[in-house]
């Protein structure tokens, strides 16, 4: 530790001051927005912040840093700002080094909430090119950064103070971990000399987040803290993506240093596999060539590895049908003849029939989650499995891989594509089998249509709302969701055509993910339409985020599919708990339209089929956040459904089949 307690910014003094200061700062709610805006850390528009920064510091702060230029693209207001290349003011503290490291990594936006121990780190952002989005709750900051990372492909950054700030991030970090989303979390920590004393707002953040991060760091040196942040960022982005965290004790952030952070480097022993073993690729190609019922299973790793073009090319060239996992939605266009949509617990009947009957499954970037496989004994039981994954630990973890191909998804698919001709020659295959299999898949598509009845004498069907919105929105619309029935309807009935258009909480299943992720997505892609399908239960968990959407004037549309219940639980209670609806029905909900109006957003209520198109249109056209409270048929449930641990081929089409 380079800093002694009695330097200019006394760490001991700070710690004493904290208890007084923190009740406001640590639990900062939206009322603090004004304060933080004055502090210049970006609660208002970027232009205003820039202007303030300019006024505060005569030296132009934007310079030759790569981060400065992209940031001007995201906000036309900034074009007026001078961005002369030139000398950056020298670094004086650890926190400035942190900001410089983030800029150097290309970070443009940071999502977070202020607080005692993180204050110095925020202070380091004051003169930086970074735009800070103040969130109403740290969980929202983590989800917003997570979604930002999913839309951009580079780590989203969130920050929070020690103790409750850090623990509030935990859900979002765990979510990113389960879905391999690139995320960097920065947390304040009590000064090093107080660590272990159960100091005010002290939590062992490194200990708490150890099992839910790729790796995490306790920064202990102001000189190297920038390097540590750079390494954490690089690590979150590389190989199998995921969350990393740097815990930043207050004395390290305020500590003096003049060291510029070095170029971000990966840890010395961290290896990212590229191409797979050639012999293994050839063997896999022969397995595909020999197969009569080949199927591609495209997972979230295809999105993360930017391998959607390679996957499309391979599938269409070889004419092999494609099913996706839920996180893999959009990696293959859902309106393509070869696409059977997604498989698993609530996947389409035809996808589940195909995956149950395939004799050779080319699985790319998937971890064979139990919601996909159902009971492992009956998962693709006839299939020789080719498993392409960048993470060797996924090979044969849940489903045995007959042909493990460890490498980058795109690179391995290219290798496979190159090996197919020779494989077909070697196996002497004829195309007839493939053709018959494709016809069989089409037959299943006809047998198990995703058609739902819309009787006039019952309330609005949620599927209808989703399809109406999908028809109205442009192709590149980003759809986010909470978790539950609405999530299933959104993913079943929206037609996704591109990767990174479906942003959801898959592995962790975090209710409340929808609105904060829509905020993150809109900040990442301000020119694209963002729609959040939420459930009433999910929306209630994070609706405070509306204040952020209003403040930032984010033009996004939230459609609450309101059935006055946490419907998925109720569906299971009806099916498996003899309709004993314990704690699942929410007849006490607020009026979401009025709630939206109270936040300053547009609030609309939807009940009738005849109003669907107009109401959705009005919400979309509103310049700013709009919430549609769509009262849907509370009796509607999600089908098809594979019972937990069940056989994918025995999906139920209605409750009596469960």
């Amino acid at each position, binding site marked *: 530790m380079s800093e002694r307690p009695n330097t200019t910014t006394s760490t001991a003094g700070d710690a004493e001051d904290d208890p007084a200061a923190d009740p406001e700062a640590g639990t900062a709610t939206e009322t603090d927005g004004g304060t933080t805006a004055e502090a210049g850390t970006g609660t208002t528009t970027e232009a205003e912040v820039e202007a303030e920064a300019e006024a505060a510091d005569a030296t132009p702060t934007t310079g030759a840093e790569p981060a400065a230029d992209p940031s001007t693209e995201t906000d036309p207001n900034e074009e007026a700002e001078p961005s002369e290349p030139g000398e950056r003011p020298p670094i004086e503290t650890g926190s400035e080094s942190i900001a410089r490291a983030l800029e150097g990594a290309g970070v443009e936006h940071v999502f977070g909430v202020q607080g005692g121990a993180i204050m110095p780190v925020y202070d380091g952002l004051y003169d930086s090119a970074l735009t800070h989005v103040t969130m109403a709750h740290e969980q929202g900051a983590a989800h917003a950064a997570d979604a930002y990372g999913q839309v951009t492909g580079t780590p989203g950054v969130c920050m929070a103070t020690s103790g409750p700030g850090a623990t509030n991030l935990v859900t979002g970090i765990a979510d990113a971990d389960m879905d391999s989303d690139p995320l960097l979390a920065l947390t304040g920590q009590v000064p090093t000399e107080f660590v272990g004393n159960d100091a005010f707002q002290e939590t062992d953040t*490194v*200990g708490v987040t*150890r*099992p839910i991060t790729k*790796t995490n760091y*306790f920064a202990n040196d102001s000189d190297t803290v920038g390097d540590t942040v750079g390494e954490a960022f690089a*690590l979150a982005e590389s190989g199998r993506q995921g969350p990393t965290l740097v815990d930043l004790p207050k004395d390290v952030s305020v500590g003096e240093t003049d060291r510029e952070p070095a170029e971000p480097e990966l*840890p010395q*022993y*961290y290896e990212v596999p590229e191409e797979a073993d050639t012999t293994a690729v050839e063997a896999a190609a022969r397995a595909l060539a020999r197969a009569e019922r080949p199927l591609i299973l495209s997972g979230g790793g295809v999105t993360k590895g930017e391998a959607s073009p390679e996957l499309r090319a391979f599938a269409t060239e070889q004419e092999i049908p494609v099913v996706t996992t839920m996180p893999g939605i959009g990696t293959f266009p859902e309106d393509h003849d070869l696409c059977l949509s997604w498989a698993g617990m609530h996947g389409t*009947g035809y996808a589940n*029939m195909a995956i*149950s*009957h395939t004799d050779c499954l080319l699985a790319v970037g998937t971890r*064979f989650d139990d919601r996909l496989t159902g009971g492992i*004994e*009956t998962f*693709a*039981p*006839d*299939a*020789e*499995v080719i498993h392409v994954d960048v*993470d*060797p*630990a996924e*090979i*044969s973890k*849940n*489903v*045995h891989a*007959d042909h493990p191909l460890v490498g980058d998804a795109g690179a391995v698919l290219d290798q496979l594509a190159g090996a197919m001709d020779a494989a077909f020659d070697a196996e002497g295959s004829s195309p007839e089998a493939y053709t018959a299999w494709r016809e069989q898949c089409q037959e299943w598509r006809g*047998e*198990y*249509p*995703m*058609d739902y*009845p*819309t*009787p*006039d004498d*019952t309330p609005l069907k949620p*599927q209808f709302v989703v399809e*109406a919105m999908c028809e109205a929105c442009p192709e590149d619309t980003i759809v986010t969701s909470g978790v539950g029935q609405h999530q299933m309807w959104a993913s079943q*009935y929206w037609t996704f055509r591109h990767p990174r258009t479906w942003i959801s909480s898959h592995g962790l299943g975090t209710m409340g993910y929808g609105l904060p992720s829509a905020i993150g997505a809109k900040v990442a892609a301000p020119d694209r339409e963002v729609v959040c399908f939420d459930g009433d239960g999910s929306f209630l968990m994070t609706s405070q985020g509306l204040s952020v959407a209003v403040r930032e004037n984010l033009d996004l549309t939230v459609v609450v599919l309101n059935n006055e219940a946490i419907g998925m639980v109720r569906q299971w209670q009806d099916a498996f708990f003899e309709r004993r609806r314990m704690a699942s029905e929410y007849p006490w909900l607020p009026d979401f339209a009025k709630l939206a109006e109270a936040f300053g957003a547009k609030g609309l209520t939807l009940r009738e*089929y005849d109003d669907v198109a107009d109401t959705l249109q009005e919400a979309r056209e509103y310049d700013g956040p709009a919430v549609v409270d769509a009262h849907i048929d509370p*009796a*509607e*449930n999600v*089908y*098809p459904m594979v019972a937990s641990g069940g*056989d994918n*081929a*025995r999906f*139920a*089409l*209605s*409750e*009596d*089949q469960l």
Partner: protein
Amino acid sequence: MSSDHAEDSDAGTGANGRHEQGLDGPRPEDRERPQGRRSSQGIRIDPQAEAEHAPRRTAISALVANDPGVLATVTGLVSRRQFNIESLTVGPTTNPETSRITLVIEEPDPGIRQVETQLEKLVPVISVRELGSDAIQRELVICKVHGEEPEKVQAITEMYDGRTLDAGPRTITVEIVGDEGKIDDAIDAYRQFGIRELARTGGTALARGEEWTTDAEEERYERLVNGTRTGAETGTKTGTRTRTNGAADD
């Protein structure tokens, strides 16, 4: 997708008069089912191949960076993934920047592969290897027995090549070094006197002969001796050949 579907609404009528739920299609029992099956380990059951793997005991050596929290990271992984672990020991290596963690686990083959790959995935873990059955494996036990029959205790201690560390009127404390089975046997032998307390280290191990315990150490050695390739070329071969030397220890 339109309200014209109203006429189709009778389809999918569920139980208990709940209306208009569900989708059309053949019922589960009417569908064609695939013939195959997988084992609980996710392995396709092939009549020609063995489908289930029985657990076996083995030692895994992990070279780790001396980062703070690395032990917690490794033990956290073991507990979270429910690996069946017999013992775990940590200690320094020739390189002051690294430590060796030796895990003795009992898992079927797929489980052993998972332990290896999951360990390897941890960022502070540099190199991981399962040691062969010929690896040199030792643990130590300190055993405190009742001291009423010192000669008999001494006789057992000698039989197991142990040493007496402390002897008093009421207690005798001995140490035994050996592989797991030898220690188990020695403890059984001491039971006749009544064991007051014992402390056991768990296994630590090295690969036998010229074979390297982890790849990273081999690479480092080669770097240090500047391009000498002897270790890499002869390692595995001489490893088995020199077996007799080491086996004499047992």
